[in-house]
């Protein structure tokens, strides 16, 4: 916790554990990005902790050579909160899937965002249950056929980024597994944020939900089907950035413009724009990626310290506590 920068490479964060994801799993790409980011951060490996719940993505801690805690389904955000309460100097990452973060652990996600606990929250969203063999998840699109929904799902999916904003999240971003330039940059931004930094990573489950986000992550279609937003820059997309999005604030929607100069400049401090970007799910429009929202706000432990500076208790101080309201016989 010296704050000194240490020269490490992505390889330094590999463990001796055999990676047990399926061949072609999007998690390999995410792991690669995370290791690159850790090397760039230059912190001691011992000052970083990866915490997870249950699921494919939750195997993450075994594959990163830092401290790691593979806990129980859905509870990683709470466990990570306890870690920060005991030792706020640690850099704590929480990695989980859509079921871990949004189904069984949904309540905990809401509350770490509301409290703004200083964590990096990486939601690996593949819109399916992987480890339990392919059931529909809270983010599966309507009509998803699975062993638990043979006729197709009929319940509406959840929008993770919108949920995070609604819960009071003050750093909300989206990226995708295959974007090996965009994902590390997004994770670096998340890591630099003091508070709960929520990053939804669209991930391809090759076995149970292949191509769920196909157009978004496949290279050929990516330029037309996604728009990468950056603070202060126009929202442009297309092979050469020749088209743009115009934000229509009264409707909270977007339209496409062929005139790049007309495109709206992204402002990551504008909550209405952030919510509109999160909600932009429309086949006729590109899906937004990037940091939708980032505003400074006191994080939980800082607020706790401001409320009551945390000091060890000496025996003499304890005697005073013990003697309150006492009398001498």
């Amino acid at each position, binding site marked *: 916790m010296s704050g000194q920068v240490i020269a490490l490479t992505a390889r330094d964060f590999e463990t001796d554990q055999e990676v047990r994801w399926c061949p072609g799993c999007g998690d390999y790409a995410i792991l690669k990005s995370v290791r690159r980011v850790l090397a760039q951060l230059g912190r001691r490996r011992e000052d970083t902790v990866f915490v997870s719940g249950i699921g494919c993505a939750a195997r993450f801690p075994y594959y990163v050579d830092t401290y790691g805690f593979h806990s129980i389904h859905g509870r990683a955000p709470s466990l*990570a909160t306890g870690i920060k309460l005991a030792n706020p100097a640690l850099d704590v990452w929480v990695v989980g899937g859509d079921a871990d973060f949004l189904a069984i652990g949904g309540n905990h996600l809401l509350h770490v965002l509301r409290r703004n606990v200083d964590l990096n929250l990486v939601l690996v969203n593949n819109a399916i249950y992987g480890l339990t063999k392919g059931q529909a998840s809270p983010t599966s699109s309507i009509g998803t056929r699975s062993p638990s929904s043979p006729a197709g799902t009929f319940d509406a999916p959840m929008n993770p980024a919108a949920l995070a904003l609604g819960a009071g999240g003050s750093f909300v971003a989206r990226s995708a597994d295959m974007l090996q330039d965009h994902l590390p940059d997004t994770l670096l931004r998340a890591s630099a944020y003091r508070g709960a930094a929520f990053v939804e990573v669209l991930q391809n489950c090759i076995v149970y939900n292949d191509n769920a986000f196909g157009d978004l992550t496949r290279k050929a279609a990516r330029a037309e089907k996604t728009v990468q937003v950056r603070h202060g820059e126009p929202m442009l997309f297309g092979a050469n950035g020749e088209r743009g999005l115009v934000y229509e604030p009264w409707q909270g929607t977007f339209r496409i413009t062929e005139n790049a100069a007309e495109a709206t400049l992204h402002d990551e401090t504008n909550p209405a724009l952030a919510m509109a970007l999160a909600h932009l799910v429309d086949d006729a429009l590109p899906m937004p990626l990037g940091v939708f929202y980032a505003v400074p706000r006191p994080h939980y432990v800082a607020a706790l310290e401001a409320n009551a500076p945390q000091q060890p208790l000496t025996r003499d101080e304890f005697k005073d506590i013990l003697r309150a309201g006492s009398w001498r016989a």
Partner: protein
Amino acid sequence: MTASAPANHAHAPTTRTVVRFAGDSGDGIQVLGTEFAKAVALDRHDLMTLPDFPAEIRAPAGSTFGVSAFQIQFGDDGVLTPGDQADALFAFNPAALKTNVDALKPGGLIVADPGAFSARNLKRAGYAANPLDGDALSRYRLITVDIARLTAEAVAATGVGKKQAGRAKNFWSLGLCFWLFGGERGATIGWIEDKFVKAPEVAASNVAALNAGHAYGETLELDAGSTAQDARTAPRHGLFRTVTGTDAMGLGLAAVAALSGLKLTYCSYPITPASALLHFLAGLNGRGVSTFQAEDEIASATAAIGASYAGGLGVTASSGPGLVLKGEALGLAVAVELPLVAIDVQRAGPSTGMPTKPEQADLNLALYGRHGEAPLPVLAPATPAECFHVVIEAARLAMRYMTPVLVLSDAYIANAAQAWQLPDVDALPAITPAFRTEAHGFQPFARNPDTLARPWATPGTTGLAHRIGGLERGAGAGDISYDPDNHEAMSRLRAAKVAGIESTLPCDIDGGAAAGDLLVIGWGSTYGAIVEAVQGLTSQGHAVGHLHLRQLWPLPPNLADILQRFRAVAVPELNHGQLARLIRSEFLVDARPIGQMRGQPFKVAHLEAELAALLPGAPQ
């Protein structure tokens, strides 16, 4: 333990007085009782209290289900129960009289305010005629005092409104109590002035009411017929305070922070009757203790585990419904072998049950309430004051053996108050957590050969980066393992570690005979009632011994020997025989259950009769 275990068993109860206050849940009955308890303690009496209140915060005025009561027994040394029957009852309205008059002994004193016995209140309570008139209460001595009117007159000079005048009634009654039963008014006046420092006129009105109540008794020369005020404890030396189990447990947890130098992270979700501990510790936030009000029971347990993982001491508490929800997290703590203290303030169940009433029916849950083979130590304080040492011992064991430890308290222990001699803080042994720092030869699941504990290696420590988790792990290196031999070995190691804990909690005859006809084994809040029932039987010449277990798992190693010294074994507990079944299954003895599930402590006379029936030769 020695400082907190009042073990004056040879002493027969002589001059004791039991006073019961009952009124609407908004009448300030608990404040009245608590202040009276403090005052009689200052006046050198031993005491035990029983707050008995509904879950409703402000039930409809005058309703029987909204009656809140408070009972206190005080006298000379060795008061261990709140008393079976009251010598005096303060009934603040008809509903309070109706629901509490049976708690009064024949010939006992009733103090009632006729002003509160209006036609409407009588009807609400289900009285066809006013019981204060006629001879409905002829078995008792009745004093009627127009408390509302007298309080209003007393506070008139302080200039407070009608509402506050109404609120001051309980202090007027407290003043009268001081006249009737003794007690030191000065402490109460000090407390009032502190509590209402921002509203001096309210403080003045409460003090005026208190003094007026006392003056009323003096002027009319009212006599309670009690001599308990003259029956004082033997001369004592040292510092004392009254504590509830909640206070003692909170102080014990603060002591853990002071003795270990660790940050104690207390994580909890509001639930009756455990919330009071969160409130107590929230008042110490920042002083070695940080409190975290989690979003649910599961989050509170897992956050506590996270705190212990990161090198603090995680503590989580709840009542039965919450402990059920924490079960999976406790299993995780067993699996990853991290220290954790989990407290269950038991209440009557199942489901919501009777949230403010005590029961001891979570023993099975504590022992067995996790999937897989997941043993952990289970401790139980016997008295409110004992909560202090038991929770310190729980923390010490958790860190020494790298295990979650469960502490079973209950609604009675949590809320009951007794006078407590403060322990010598300098004599309390330090708790030294054995954090691993040596990187050479480090293995996260290597074991200390003496304790079988694994090392406590916290994030941030150079050279010890490692991974832990709920998946079964290989002995030593801790890598994920599905190897059958390893799982067998690890399961047995975890069990052996818990079976081998050495605690400092006593396990010996608490009172009565050391061998003979009947051994009475109790645990938790039944302590006082069992002591007195056993005293009653031994004074009749029966060879009856009392052993109170503070360590319910693993059972103390010398218990088998003690069992052999008696011809019969009885296990009184506030459940349907959970400890009795454990004793039977562990020792193959015919332990006879004496169960009670009334949401109330045992009454001594009832328990004595039940035990007498189990004596060899008793009519079956």
